């Protein structure tokens, strides 16, 4: 049984212009100890999916309108906020994208890590502090015992992300969701953080759901990959399979864009790889959402929405092209 099984998740936002279907029927599952990468452009719904798991989206305007999020056999969707609080951080840890703004500026990092321990585990203040220092050491913060009383602004971005990781792992969760944990960091730091994450995963054996839009990160860390586009999963495969045999035109575009950037960084135009841009998800047109940008678009693509189907073991795509082939 999967650790986490998201089935048909639909998260919508009410806006002044209409209902924004940010996540529209997503199925993702993660096994224990596995690293799953969710990739896609910004705005494709991957962050909303992740946030929906712990209901961290603002409600209202956001709302989970359909679907199940089954974590260890228990559906999280109908749970109340206080019931979810027992799962947050304890069972599922969360690492956010912006280390610069994700830490409370007026509390010491020690307080911020310890409060999570104190919430979920019966520890004294002193024990919590000791464990916090221990965690800080684990994430390789030098002089952890002294730094524990420092405020976030006294740390660099990379250090803060380490603090975030320490915070997310403090309660030894079974699943860590890392939402673009390296995007805001310098390239050199990015690698360090990913290594640290990898290291932690090996040490604690938790599952990791890594959300990213960088294919390089995917190749380096993932065991399985889910590709999202416009609120839907378009392709899902083990990492080698995906890179070796991408089936969805969108995935193909994503992968093709990697070497091009490497070779010709000067002429990088961000969306050169895939023409057009992400559709606005208010009253989306029927049919495949990628169709307008797809080189292989057929008449059926504009009419009927492709279903996610398995084309090889563990490899699923949502594309009419596969049908034709």
């Amino acid at each position, binding site marked *: 049984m999967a650790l986490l099984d998201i089935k048909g998740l639909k998260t919508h936002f009410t806006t002044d212009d209409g209902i924004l279907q940010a996540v529209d029927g997503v199925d993702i599952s993660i096994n224990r100890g596995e690293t799953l990468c969710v990739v896609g452009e910004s705005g494709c719904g991957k962050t909303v999916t992740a946030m929906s798991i712990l209901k961290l989206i603002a409600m209202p305007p956001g709302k989970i309108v359909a679907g199940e999020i089954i974590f260890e056999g228990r559906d999280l969707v109908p749970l109340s906020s206080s019931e979810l609080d027992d799962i947050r951080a304890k069972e599922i840890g969360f690492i*956010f994208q*912006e280390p610069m703004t994700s830490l409370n500026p007026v509390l010491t990092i020690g307080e911020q890590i310890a409060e999570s321990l104190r919430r*979920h585990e019966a520890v004294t203040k002193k024990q919590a502090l000791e464990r916090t220092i221990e965690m800080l050491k684990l994430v390789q913060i030098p002089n952890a015992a002294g730094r524990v009383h420092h405020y976030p*602004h006294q740390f660099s971005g990379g250090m803060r992300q380490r603090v975030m990781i320490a915070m997310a792992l403090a309660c030894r969760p079974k699943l860590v969701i890392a939402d673009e944990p390296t995007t805001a960091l310098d390239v050199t730091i990015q690698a360090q953080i990913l290594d640290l994450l990898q290291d932690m995963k090996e040490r604690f054996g938790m599952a990791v759901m890594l959300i990213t839009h960088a294919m390089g990160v995917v190749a380096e860390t993932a065991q399985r990959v889910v590709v999202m586009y416009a609120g839907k999963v378009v392709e899902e495969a083990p990492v080698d399979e995906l890179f070796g045999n991408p089936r969805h035109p969108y995935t193909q575009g994503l992968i093709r864009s990697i070497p091009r950037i490497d070779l010709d960084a000067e002429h990088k135009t961000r969306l050169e790889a895939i023409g057009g841009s992400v559709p606005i998800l208010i009253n989306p047109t029927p049919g495949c959402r990628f169709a307008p940008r797809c080189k292989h678009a057929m008449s059926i693509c504009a009419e009927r929405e492709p279903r996610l189907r398995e084309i090889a073991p563990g490899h699923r795509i949502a594309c009419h092209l596969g049908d034709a082939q």
Partner: protein
Amino acid sequence: MSQYILRRLMIAIPSLLGISLVLFVVLALAPGDPFGELATNPNVPPEVQAALRAKFGLDDPIYLRYLHWLAAMAQGDWGFSFVSRMNVDTLILQRLPTTLYVIGSAQLLALAIAIPVGVYAATRPYSIFDQIANTFAFIGFSLPTFFTGILFILIFSVKLDWLPFVYSTDIKATGIAWALEMIRQAIMPVMVLGLFQAASMTRFVRSAMLDVIRLDYVTTARAKGLGQAKVIVKHVMRNAMIPVVTLIALQMPAVFGGAIVTEQIFRIPGIGSLLISSILANDTPVVMAVTFVFACLVVLFNLIADVLYGWLDPRISFR
């Protein structure tokens, strides 16, 4: 930190001197004299009025009067009221307890309303509760206290006959009865003033909360499973209070200065009504003393606010 406070206090001395000079000049230049009431009285010849002016030194040059004042103040002599012919400090001390009690309670009431209402409204923006709170806040600061005061009197004193509207500093009862009567007579002024202050403060608290509540670190806190209450109090309020503290510190000297209109309507013998009647009577020594104390408080609370920022917001360094 203590060095910082000390340095700030040192800076405060020349700053207060400067303020006192400006205050004095403004008061001296403003038209009017304390004996205007004698003018139309045919019983008092103009010579008497002129003699009084001369006697109280009103015809001396301004710099001389200022130096006199400064010298006296340095020796702890606050001056002598032209109108009451008594020492200014006695006058002020006589009124201080009432001011602290009534106006202070009103400020506390304002805080007690504004913070929970503002916080709760901010956690549910655009909900029914929020809309109602906002509407009341808008009504609150659209209607001046001279108006709400009379409205309250008409409702609670005249129509319902529940509360007295003349504030008495001389309640005959003792013990519990005295305390109850003190509370009863303070209800209306405290409400009028407190609600007026609460209206604007609620809006500030709500806005500050909304600014913070959408920040990333609040989501981080929620992801820790801390529970709504703790997230709001520990993470959101703590940060939102930083600008609110400015406002509260800004209000504190006003506690002393009192709310002139409210004091007038309910006949509360506070510092505010002393100030206004002294101004209208051109009783310069009293005005000068009250405003100077006021200036000291402003400077002091400015310092307290800055220290509080430093405490609330570790990013600010004391230079």
